[in-house]
């Protein structure tokens, strides 16, 4: 039985982090699996954070070492999303742990790293890790997506409403004879036929 940090989408992680207003800022960590796209996850998270508060979010990527990361974070008065640290060796995390006093900032910081990197943080930067506290999440890339059940539910409701079948809707769309209701745009997307829009 594997127990790990709870899964969450970027919208939820952003909501929780941006709700922390006031002194001291605060940290959150988003853990990615080896196959997850770090750049996309980080950019989506930064976008969500910006949309919640209307404040521009600093994107800090690929700091070469601990002093460089400290300098970039200290130099920004804005909330920040930090990525590009997965190649750091254990010793560099240890180094960051030693320099952690310089990381104190009055704004919110999100760390986006692979799960293996977080293991290194736990082991080699235990003081820094104690700052991260409970706000550690496993990235759920499809958190906001309709489940198959939800998709089918919506399609069923559309079929009842219109009296049409999926095939009829596609045929009419191909013949450019669909009624001009927004429901039909929704229908085509649900059928993965956005090409007919």
């Amino acid at each position, binding site marked *: 039985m594997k127990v790990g940090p709870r899964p969450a989408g970027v*919208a*939820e992680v952003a*909501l929780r982090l941006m*709700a922390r207003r006031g002194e001291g800022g605060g940290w959150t960590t988003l853990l990615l699996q080896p196959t997850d796209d770090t750049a996309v996850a980080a950019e989506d998270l930064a976008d969500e954070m910006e949309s919640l508060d209307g404040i521009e979010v600093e994107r800090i990527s690929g700091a070469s070492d601990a002093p460089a990361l400290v300098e970039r974070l200290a130099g920004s008065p804005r909330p920040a999303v930090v990525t590009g640290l997965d190649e750091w060796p254990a010793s560099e995390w240890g180094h960051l742990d030693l320099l952690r006093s310089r990381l104190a900032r009055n704004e919110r910081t999100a760390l986006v790293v692979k799960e293996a990197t977080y293991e290194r943080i736990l082991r080699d930067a235990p003081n820094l890790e104690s700052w991260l506290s409970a706000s550690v999440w496993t990235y759920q890339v499809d958190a*906001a*997506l*309709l489940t198959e059940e*939800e*998709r089918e*539910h*919506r399609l069923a*409701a*559309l079929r*009842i*409403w219109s009296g049409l079948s999926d095939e009829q809707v596609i045929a009419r769309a191909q013949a*450019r004879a*669909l*009624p*001009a*209701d*927004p*429901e*039909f*745009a*929704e229908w*085509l*997307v*649900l*059928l*993965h*036929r*956005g*090409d007919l*829009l």
Partner: protein
Amino acid sequence: MKPHDVLRQLKQASSPFSEASDCVGIYGGEKDFKRTGNRPHFVRHDGAWFTFTLTVRAHRGQPLELIAYDFELCYPHDLLSSIHGPRFIRFDLNPPWHDNDPRALRCHMHPGHDDLLAPAPLMSPLELLDLLVTGLRLPEEPRRA
């Protein structure tokens, strides 16, 4: 409504049709065609509830292109017991298809009836959300003539 519940109601679906483009559906709650109030929706403090659907086209590196939307606000029966008002108000943006119906208005509203249309300005999704969340409040007492 709890922030968690708000998040849970927000969903999306995508239909990629090329490497650089996606059509995306963004859903706020579930469409309630019979307006029973039994489907997932967003609830206001006055008891009115709303849902919305957006269809957009996403091109990599460019702003989203709005294809269609529908935003519907429903008033519960008990709110309407003392004030006579429409059961619902709905704002639609039809998809940009060829339409033979001379009555059709791409951007319109339905003031309480699915077959009654009136022109409406094209609004951004956030403007519409703002309107549905904070506006369109039924008065506590009817206006006197």
